[in-house]
C-alpha cells in the first residue's frame, strides 16, 4: 500500500516548505500547490487522499477553491489550516464539508499536534 497523499494548498512558500517537511516526517506523501488553479490541476492529476487548504490566497481564496474542489469531488476530506483571524466564521463554510479548522498560529497550543489529530480523524487512521 502506498503512502497517504496530502494535497497542501498554501501561497506562502516558506510555510509550505516547513509543513511539507513536517508532514513528510509523519509519513505522508505531500503534494504542494500555491494557488487554486494549481490545486485543481493536482487534484485531477494526483488523486490525493486529503486536502489541507489555506484561506487567504491571491486570485482565488480558500472558500472559492473549496467550492471548485466540491464540484469535482464531494467526498475528499478538507482541513482548513489558516492564519485568518475569523477562521470559523466563513460564510457558507458549514455546507462545504470541512473536516476541521486549524489555526496556523495559536499561543501555547501546538498547531502541529492539532493538525496531526485532525488528519488522523479525517482519514480515520493514524498517520504512520
Amino acid at each position, binding site marked *: 500500500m502506498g503512502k497517504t497523499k496530502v494535497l497542501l494548498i498554501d501561497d506562502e512558500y516558506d510555510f509550505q516548505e516547513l509543513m511539507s*517537511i513536517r508532514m513528510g516526517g509523519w509519513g505522508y506523501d505531500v503534494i504542494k500547490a500555491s494557488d487554486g488553479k494549481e490545486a485543481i490541476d493536482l487534484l485531477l492529476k494526483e488523486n490525493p487522499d486529503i486536502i489541507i487548504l489555506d484561506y487567504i490566497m491571491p486570485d482565488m481564496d480558500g472558500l472559492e477553491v473549496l467550492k471548485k474542489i466540491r464540484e469535482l469531488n464531494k467526498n475528499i476530506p478538507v482541513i482548513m489550516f489558516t*492564519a485568518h483571524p475569523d477562521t*470559523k466564521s466563513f460564510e457558507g463554510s458549514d455546507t462545504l464539508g470541512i473536516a476541521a479548522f486549524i489555526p*496556523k498560529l495559536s*499561543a*501555547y497550543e501546538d*498547531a502541529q499536534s492539532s493538525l496531526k489529530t485532525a488528519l488522523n480523524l479525517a482519514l480515520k487512521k493514524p498517520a504512520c
Partner: protein
Amino acid sequence: MPTRVLIAGGGEKVISLINTLNGLKDIELAGLCDNREDSAGMMHAKAIGLPCSTDLSAFMQSSKADIIIDTSGSPEFQKALGRIDLQPARIIDSKAAELLIYLAREKESAVQEVGRMKSEFISTTSHELRTPLAAIKESVMLILDGTAGEFSSQQGFFLKIAKRNIDRLATLINDLLDISKIESGRMRLKKAPCDIEVLARKALEPMRVLAEDKRLKLGAEFEAGLPQVSCDADKITQVITNLLSNAIKYTASGGAVNIKVSKCLSVNGLKPQEPKPGFEDFIEVSVKDTGVGIEKEDFSRLFLKFGQLDGSMTRRFGGTGLGLAICKELISMHGGEIWVESDVGKGSMFSFTLPLAN
C-alpha cells in the same frame, strides 16, 4: 462628550423629537420643560423616565444643557426664556433642531465607518503578522522536536526562549484582535453544551511545560459529576488559558498553581457569601496561585484595558494588560461573573462562573 439637549414645550410633535434624539449617540437628553403638567410631551417624557419640570428657571440651571430646543413657538414662552440666564446654553427652534439631528446622524455614521475600517485594518494586519510568525514558530519547533537533528543544551535553551517569545507575540496579536472585536461589537459567541472538565484539561496541557520550566506544582481538582455548561468552547478555553498563564507568570519558582472546577450556587453568576433561596446553579472555575498577590484597592482596575498594576510589572512579567479585560468581557457575554480574591505576598485566586446548559 455628547451634547446635552433640553426640550422646551410639550406639544404632540415633541414625542417624535424625544424619540429621535434618544436614538442618537452624540446627544444626551437633559429633560423636558413645559408650563403644563398634562401636555402630551410631558406625559410621554414622564412615561419614559425623562426629567421634567414646569419651573423653567430652576430647571434651566440644574439641567446644564448645551442646547435648548424651543418647540413652543410661543412669544410668551420666548419672553420667559429671555429673562433667564441661559449661559452657556444656546436656544434653537424646531427647524434648527432638524439640522442638529442631521449633523448628529452624519457624525454617527462617520464614526461607525471609522470603526468598521479600524476593525478591518486590525483583522488584515493580524493575518499579516500571524503568517510570518507561524513560519518562525514552525521552524523553531522543527529544530526543538529533533526533526532537524541533535542540538546542544545551550542551543535548546535559546530555542525555548525564542518559542516563549513567539507565544507572547501570538498572544498579543490575538488580544488586539479580540479587543477590537469587542469594541466594535463584532465579538460573537458560538454557544453549545460543553463539558467544562474537558475544556479545562485542554487548557492545562500546554501549561504543564511552562509550569515545569518554572518548577511550579500545577494541580487540578474536578468535582465529580459536573453538569454541562452552556458556552463557546474556544472562548472559555481561552479564558482558562489566560488565568493559568497569568498564575504561572506571577508565581515564583517552587510555588503552586491549582485549578478547581465545582458546582456552585450563585446569584447573577456571582458567588454569594451565604446561599439564599432563589439562587441559580452555576459552575465555578477557580485558578489559585501562590504568587505575588494583589492589593485590594487594585482589584477593580485589574479587569480594565491596559490595567496592569504598574509599568514595572509589564516590564518584569510581560503581557499586554488586555488579557483580563477580554476575560471579563467574554465571561459577562456568557452570563457569568469573574472576580479576584488575593492576599499580598501569599497569592491570588481568580474565579469565574458559567450558567449550566438549559
